[in-house]
């Protein structure tokens, strides 16, 4: 399984000379299987470059949305395959209690927010609502479960052979917990992340920032490390950086938490252009 990062930023795209190393595009990750099945995790602004890099004769691609906040869907109408006839694009994501996934996406893909509507896209679109039973897409088996973040938000556990990737771009497992981390059974996202080979997890804040932004749905870098330890993952990839954090600030944040927690697992901060392989 190959995992490539096309957007690592959270909340708002942050292109700037100070964010060149980690990247300024919002959430987008490509997952490629051993039989060339491709999954796109989230459709932040990073999806535009990803779309342009895909083979033109692709006949199917699956986009797995965690939720419908703007930083996770803003790039969707700029995804080149959506403008191609003959390609099947499957969009997976959460409905709300009252609106379908398609109807929720149309709120963005319609005037005045955007000039092109969903039905004007050339691709053959299929919508799939989550959470639900185990999903099979090509060589991948995918569990989709709700995790703590404002508005329905999905975390994914993606398996290909023996390789397990857990993806929780926006996640606040510490919300409301009197202690964190607490017991595994009472920790949001634990079942998805348990013993994963690779965990891509929200790392938006410093500890001080978290204290003033509790309930916004995100984790501090330190909480991401503690969650990874609780879930006994092999490799943590911090992700979804706050748009105000420069490359140098992120370096300092990771160094400080690493020195304190001394993780027994590998840590590789996500950055645009990074590719990681997990043996299937």
């Amino acid at each position, binding site marked *: 399984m190959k995992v490539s990062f096309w957007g690592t930023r959270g909340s708002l795209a942050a292109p700037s000379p100070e964010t060149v190393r980690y990247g300024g595009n919002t959430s987008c990750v490509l997952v490629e299987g051993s039989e060339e099945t491709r999954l796109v995790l989230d459709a932040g602004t990073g999806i535009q470059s990803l779309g342009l890099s895909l083979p033109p004769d692709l006949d199917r691609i699956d986009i797995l949305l965690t939720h419908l906040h703007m930083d996770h869907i803003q790039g969707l109408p700029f995804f080149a395959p959506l403008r191609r006839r003959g390609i099947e694009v499957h969009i997976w994501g*959460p*409905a709300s*209690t009252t609106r379908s996934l398609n109807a929720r996406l149309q709120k963005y893909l319609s005037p005045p927010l955007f000039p092109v509507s969903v039905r004007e896209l050339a691709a053959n679109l299929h919508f799939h*609502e*989550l*959470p*639900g039973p185990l999903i099979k897409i090509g060589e991948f088996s995918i569990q989709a*479960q*709700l*995790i*703590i973040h404002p508005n*329905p938000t999905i975390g994914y556990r993606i398996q290909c052979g023996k390789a397990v990737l857990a993806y929780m771009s926006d996640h606040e497992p510490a*919300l*409301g*917990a*009197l202690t964190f981390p607490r017991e*595994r*059974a*009472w*920790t*949001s996202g*634990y*079942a998805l992340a348990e013993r994963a080979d690779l965990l891509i997890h929200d790392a938006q804040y410093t500890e001080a920032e978290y204290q003033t932004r509790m309930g916004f749905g995100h984790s501090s870098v330190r909480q991401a490390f503690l969650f990874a330890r609780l879930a006994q993952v092999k490799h943590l990839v911090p992700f979804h950086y706050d748009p105000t954090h420069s490359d140098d600030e992120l370096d300092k944040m990771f160094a400080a938490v690493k020195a304190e927690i001394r993780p027994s697992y590998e840590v590789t901060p996500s950055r645009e252009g990074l590719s990681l392989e997990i043996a299937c």
Partner: protein
Amino acid sequence: MPQQEIEVILARHLSEYLLMPIFIVNTAGDLVFYNEPAEAILGLSYSETGMMPASEWSTVFQPVDAEGRTIPPDELPLVIALKERHPAHKVIWIKGLDGISREIEVTAFPLVGQADRFLGGIAIFWEKTTK
């Protein structure tokens, strides 16, 4: 123990901040959590009892009506909320594990999550009198 559903985790977190005694049960009716105010009714803390099967908690408090008649489990609000999946309310007398009889009002409702997932039920207790 497998991970609880996200709505159940959030319900527990909320209950830990509230003054009202709250019980949370799973779809089988097993008591999966109760908060500190509920410990006063039970006479034991959650850390002491852990999960409690439905067959145990529905009888352990010896629920009776105002005339002292035993209330069968099927007529308890939380059991109604689980079996019939609608809210239920009743005034009952119970005897806690500390041996004290209390008159309490119970409001129970089923917990239904995203995608129409039935997740269990919640009961909130208001103590009226103590004997």
